[in-house]
């Protein structure tokens, strides 16, 4: 089997056994990126030189009998929201174009210690805000299954690069569905772990109380392998959980006998694409055939998920993104005449073009030029909702609803072990289809935001294809820290089906 088609688990084994060297492996994927990225735009930066040097070092150590890490030689793509000391980190924003962090994110450091080989940084919606990857300042990612369609977002580059065999594994981040939705639309497997399971240190924050990093790969087994490296307590992230990391790869190969899976009837109401509904129902049948039982459960407050999410996330974002002001790093507007960075300075409306001070002018113009429209929209939403007089009606109320939503999940998990359903209401939509309608775009997160609001884990994997050949995603959600069960169920499903093995025809030969 060619490296491009191998699972991460098999690649690591082949590298360990010497069937392939790390340099050979890296070269295969780097060549694939070179051949394919032009049509997909999944990568914002490719580090060919760095990857090959790293691979050569691993090969040398292995040859010399020196210790190598558990992922030695495995190519990994990183969403460009993760800080890397040796590659630019831009969040797909003009604001951070060319920005080089002085440090590695905790997950990046863990993967480095495990001797993974970073091939590059993947495209995304700007600051992880979006569900189609069209909000990237560096152009949209195209869905490898149909280049006229969106890959989903915000981890669209990570999803597309795995789907198009440009990397066996990519790391994504999920604030309201940003791992699971693009994984579903691109026909790959993506895990959003329990909040706090993976350290957020070095993940450029969108909405701190919702953001979580997770693996995106071709199979649940590959996700399990990556989780063993990236999960774990980080004293540098106060919200990271001090709970031991299980050996996910050892735990997943178990039958589903007796596992109770919840099904939320409202998920199948109007708005769900019939082909998606059919695929999802068939997935339930497969899980039942594997020994699981399916039961209806209620999530009474799920209908408030989208409005709750679109208050909490923008509120936090409005504050998290305040640091991009042009003063210390990132994009700064060219200073006007008589520029003077002093807030207390005299009004100089004449020379500063109506700004109350040159400093305010710098702030306003830097942010106006550096941020894209969706980022601005969310900053404005959040700023408004946190303002005096509105806080109680919006943010405080959203926090109360969030608690109710979390309680719904915890109540449901009293009677079932997992909750299953669709990831998205439709398969991949056309590029440009929703860009004029922000509200329609917000609804792409309908089935996924609850997981983040509740702080629990979820996994998305392919459960079929539409007649036109687009992947259909299935989602499972689990109680806090039940990642082993999520991975076990998804792995069991993948042992009984081959949807996750299908490759996009459009990509054969590396050309569209």
């Amino acid at each position: 089997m060619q490296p491009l088609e191998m699972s991460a688990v098999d690649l690591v084994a082949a590298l360990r056994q010497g069937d392939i060297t790390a340099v050979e492996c890296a070269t295969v994927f780097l060549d694939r990126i070179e051949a394919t990225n032009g049509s997909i735009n999944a990568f914002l930066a490719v580090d060919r030189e760095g990857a090959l040097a790293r691979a050569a070092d691993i090969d040398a150590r292995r040859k010399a009998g020196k210790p190598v890490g558990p992922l030695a030689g495995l190519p990994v793509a990183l969403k460009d929201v993760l800080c890397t000391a040796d590659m630019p980190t831009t969040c797909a924003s003009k604001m951070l174009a060319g920005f080089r962090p002085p440090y590695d994110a905790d997950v990046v450091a863990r993967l480095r210690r495990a001797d993974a080989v970073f091939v590059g940084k993947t495209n995304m919606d700007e600051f992880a805000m979006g569900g189609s990857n069209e909000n990237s300042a560096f152009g949209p990612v195209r869905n490898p299954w149909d280049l006229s369609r969106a890959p989903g977002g915000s981890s669209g580059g990570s999803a597309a690069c795995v789907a198009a065999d440009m990397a066996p594994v990519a790391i994504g981040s999920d604030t309201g569905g940003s791992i699971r939705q693009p994984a579903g639309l691109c026909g790959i497997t993506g895990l959003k772990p329990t909040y706090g399971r993976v350290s957020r240190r070095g993940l450029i924050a969108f909405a701190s109380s919702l953001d979580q990093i997770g693996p995106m790969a071709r199979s649940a087994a590959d996700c399990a392998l990556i989780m063993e490296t990236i999960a774990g307590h980080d004293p540098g992230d106060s919200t990271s959980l001090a709970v031991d990391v299980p050996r996910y790869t050892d735990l997943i190969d178990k039958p589903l006998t007796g596992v109770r899976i919840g099904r939320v009837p409202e998920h199948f109401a109007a708005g769900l694409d019939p082909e998606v509904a059919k695929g999802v129902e068939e997935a339930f049948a497969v899980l039942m055939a594997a020994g699981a039982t399916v039961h209806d459960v209620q999530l009474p407050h799920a209908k408030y998920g989208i409005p709750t999410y679109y208050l909490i996330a923008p509120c936090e974002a409005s504050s998290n993104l305040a640091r991009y002001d042009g003063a210390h790093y990132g994009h700064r507007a060219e200073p006007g005449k008589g520029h003077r960075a002093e807030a207390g300075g005299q009004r100089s409306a004449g020379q500063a073009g109506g700004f109350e001070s040159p400093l305010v002018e710098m702030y306003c113009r830097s942010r106006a030029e550096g941020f894209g429209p969706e980022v601005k929209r969310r900053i404005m939403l959040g700023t408004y909702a946190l303002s005096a007089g509105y806080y109680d009606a919006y943010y405080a109320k959203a926090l109360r609803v969030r608690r109710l939503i979390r309680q719904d999940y915890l109540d449901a998990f009293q009677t079932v072990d997992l909750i299953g359903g669709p990831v998205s209401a439709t398969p991949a939509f056309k590029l440009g289809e929703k860009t004029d309608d922000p509200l329609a775009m917000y609804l792409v997160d309908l089935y996924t935001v609850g997981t983040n609001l509740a702080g629990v884990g979820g996994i998305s994997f392919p459960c079929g294809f539409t007649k036109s050949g687009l992947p259909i995603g299935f989602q499972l959600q689990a109680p806090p820290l039940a990642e082993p069960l999520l991975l076990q169920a998804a792995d069991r499903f993948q042992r009984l089906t081959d949807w996750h093995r299908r490759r996009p025809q459009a990509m054969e030969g590396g050309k569209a």
Partner: protein
Amino acid sequence: MSTNTPYTTIIGLEVHVQLMTRTKLFCGCSTKFGGAPNTQVCPTCLGLPGSLPVMNRQAFDLALRAALALECTIAPFTKWDRKNYFYPDLPKGYQISQFDLPFSSDGFLEVVDPKGAFEPRRVGIVRVHLEEDAGKSMHDDAAGTGDTRIDLNRAGTPLCEIVTQPDLRSPQEARAWLNELKLLLVYLGVSDCNMQEGSLRVDANVNLHIPVPATAGAEARIAKTPIVEIKNMNSFRSVERALTYEAARQWEEWQATKAEMGKTPKQTRGWDDPAGITRAQRHKEESSDYRYFPEPDLVPVTVTAERIQSIRGGMGEPPVSLRKTLASQWQISAYDADVLVNQGRELVDYFEDLATRVGEGKVASNWMQQDVLRILNETNGTVSAFPVRPAGLADLIGRVKKGDFDTSRAREIFAEMVTSGRPVDDVVAGMGISAVSDDDVIALCRELLAANPKIVADVKSGKEQAAAGLIGQAKKKNANVNPGKVRAICLDLIREMG
């Protein structure tokens, strides 16, 4: 209150103190003052993308210590909030602070003037909370570029914010209370309260309550002038001066405008120290909406009763009770105890060491007040660097008690000990002072009595004070004699004469 003004001055203070931690509140950077700009920084205090805060437990414990000493109620559960505003010395665009659930509230600190310049005043503490400091902006006009330079070494330094009730009634009280607060925080080891280095900053809120007599149409009432917040005061003396100025200014304004509180927004005025006046600042700050919300990057803090207990245990004695302890343990006056305690813990330690060696608090206290403190004040010295240690001074005092020399002679010896840093015996030898034997004194006295029959007669007739004339003569004959001894022996001899 000032009894000679037709109004009452109402003052509340907002004090920020830097906690004496080795590292910053949310990262491991040093808090040391005076480093080259931007050398004590990391991704967290620079607000770099992806960086996260981690709470410094020592800072929280120090803040707890301060709040406990201020008799505050400690919240069992407290959280962090973000205060959002844009400024170049605030790299994250928000300050991590505490908004609606401060870790402590509802305390007090009393200030008593030992000279009774004002009534003892118990000042309520609304709240004490913990927050991070911002960096420093320096406007570089000299270079002609008008650039602003930012130093983020201070960004993230732990600050305790202490907000009082408007309980102070005069600028003098405000200054005295601040002295008491500073003394307390320094005793506790919470802060060095160095205003020059910015580790203590004060803003004051002030307005006037003016009795308005009844008129035909209205009952008598109290009119309240608009509250003014005064900033930019860089010493306690400035606080007193600024408040004095501001009270007078408000009184004048009241007479001119009759403007009352609530009808105009709260004003911020900056103290111009050289000019000795307050100036109105722009209204912008008051209209700020900080959009506070809970800091999602930090977890709430719970404070257990055990933790409070352990902090109380390690707190040391605060000044207010130390004054009482000293007064009762060493039998010294409340005034003396106050003077000693107000000099700080080190001086109290010196005194207690001295008093223990001397075995008599009053004598030790007198030496402290009249000699040690006087010299420290004159030389602007610190007690830790004072060349005469308690053992040396106790030695000298012991010799005086033994009658080797009188107090004024001992003072000369002490002054020489301070200058030379040498012990009593060396100094005494060096000054040619030798103790005079009792036999020599008796012989000298007999000689004097023989030469002064008039004095002897006066004493015999009951005028003992006439013996003073003998002492002067004795000193002329032998500089080293102890005048007290001469007097006592002369009186004895006269009595023996019958």
